[in-house]
């Protein structure tokens, strides 16, 4: 089997030695995995919110941007005031990013979202408006220029297990963050009291209230949690990209695609969707080109959704 595929590959890339090819293919495999972790990080927060209250948060990308700016501020502060600790500012930045996005999410729920439950189209519009307000605020406060956080050395460069084989450290870092975050959320969802409240509320909101669960607070905290997770994603993305007031809007389409494809709100579905889309995207890009890969992936997703409008993993819970 390996021999055959090796032969096929050699036919395709005949001009290369097997060693060369092997190295690039390993790196390419990692490129797919790291795109998967990016998609997963992007989509987690939105999936949590959508799964809990059927609210699509169009300002999701801006919460990521908020987390990213929080990271820039942390990097600046630690560079200026605590250069000795600069090496380790990143974990702190991640917590700050989570906190900032969580608190803002909480306030947004109180001031906007809670008036719009049961009016899905209005939440769409309201959160879209919110995204524009946030973008403008970023522009006013931080300026329109692209910025980026200064990375500590340990987050840069690559790990070289063999000659010519470079595994990007920021890619491994992203993978680690997304795995840990997903695990933390899952464990919290299935083994904590807060998680039990969330699950009961999702399954039967009225009944959850009638057994004594504060469903409104549960909604509020879940919304804030989803926003906080978006903030962590934004923080993590400063290791690979830049930050600008509109950076978030670049992520929203992919995020949306992953969440809807995965079955809108189930975490398992989100993981599967992120994996599928990321692999398809990176393999197609390798064989064809970036733009074509995007086109084919979008077409495939639309096609699947036409056959299965409920997404890959439909929630089995009746409303």
């Amino acid at each position: 089997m390996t021999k055959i595929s090796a032969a096929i590959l050699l036919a395709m890339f005949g001009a290369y030695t097997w060693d060369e090819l092997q190295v690039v293919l390993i790196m390419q495999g990692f490129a797919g995995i790291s795109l998967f972790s990016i998609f997963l990080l992007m989509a987690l927060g939105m999936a949590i919110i959508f799964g809990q209250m059927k609210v699509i948060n169009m300002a999701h990308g801006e919460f990521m941007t908020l987390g990213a700016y929080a990271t820039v501020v942390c990097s600046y502060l630690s560079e200026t005031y605590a250069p000795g600790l600069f090496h380790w500012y990143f974990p702190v930045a991640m917590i700050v990013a989570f906190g900032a996005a969580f608190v803002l999410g909480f306030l947004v729920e109180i001031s906007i979202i809670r008036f719009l439950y049961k009016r899905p189209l209005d939440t769409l519009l309201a959160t879209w408006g919110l995204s524009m307000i946030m973008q403008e605020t970023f522009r006013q406060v931080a300026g329109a220029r692209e910025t980026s956080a200064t990375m500590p050395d340990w987050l840069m460069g690559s790990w070289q297990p063999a000659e010519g084989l470079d595994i990007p450290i920021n890619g491994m870092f992203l993978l680690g963050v997304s795995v840990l975050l997903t695990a933390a959320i899952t464990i919290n969802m299935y083994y904590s009291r807060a998680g039990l409240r969330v699950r009961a509320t999702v399954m039967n909101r009225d009944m959850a209230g009638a057994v004594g669960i504060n469903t409104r607070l549960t909604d509020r905290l879940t919304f804030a949690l989803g926003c906080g997770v978006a903030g962590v994603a934004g923080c993590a993305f400063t290791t690979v990209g830049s930050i600008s007031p509109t950076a978030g809007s670049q992520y929203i389409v992919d995020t949306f695609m992953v969440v809807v494809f995965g079955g809108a709100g189930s975490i398992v579905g989100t993981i599967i969707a992120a994996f599928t889309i990321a692999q398809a995207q990176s393999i197609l890009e390798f064989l064809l080109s970036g733009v074509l890969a995007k086109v084919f992936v979008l077409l495939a997703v639309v096609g699947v959704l036409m056959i299965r409008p409920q997404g890959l993993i439909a929630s089995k819970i009746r409303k």
Partner: protein
Amino acid sequence: MLEVKNLCVSYGESIIIRDLSFSVAKNETLAIMGRNGMGKTTLMKSMIGMIRARSGSITVDGKDVAKLDSFQRVKAGLGFVPQGRQIFSALTVEENIRTGLETAKVRKIEDWVYKTFPVLDEMKNRKGGNLSGGQQQQLAIARALVSGPKVLLLDEPTEGIQPSIIKDIARTLNELKRLRDLTVVVSEQVLSFTLEIADRLIVIESGAIVHEDPRSSVDEAVISRYLSV
């Protein structure tokens, strides 16, 4: 212990409960009887807060809860076993019970729960949705009781349960009443079951009380007439 005064409930324009008043003394069991569609469930849901009343007051142990959210009413001392049980089907039996602990003083499942409902102990880790109707009924009662309510509201607990088990439910309820020091409001259509647990019966028709009897002087024939179509 529970006092309902001038309660009006409606769905949009159609008024279902009209100016209804009654009160229940401590440790009393009041049965609310009425044919299908007469407003029993609507009354129960408005007491627990799943539906907001238009006007009127609902007082639990001296506290007016009519404007509160459901969970606050649970905190104030109401427990609710809905019609059709409404178990969280994807949660395990144990998790279902734990949902009732939110407002409880002690946040763990105490021994009496599984002692009273041994079958729930056996099925602890099964999904709630996989239980039989009778088992689900026990689960729904356990879930409502772990919050330590003063007043237990039961909406048609015998619906869809075979006659032989109905007697068991009556016995369990009477036992629990004593054990947990409960006041009970139960809506029913099955007279024989009602007579085994109730101290007093009221009959509602189109959302208003049309008849009332203490247990001691129930005229079964009259009540049956109200219940037949």
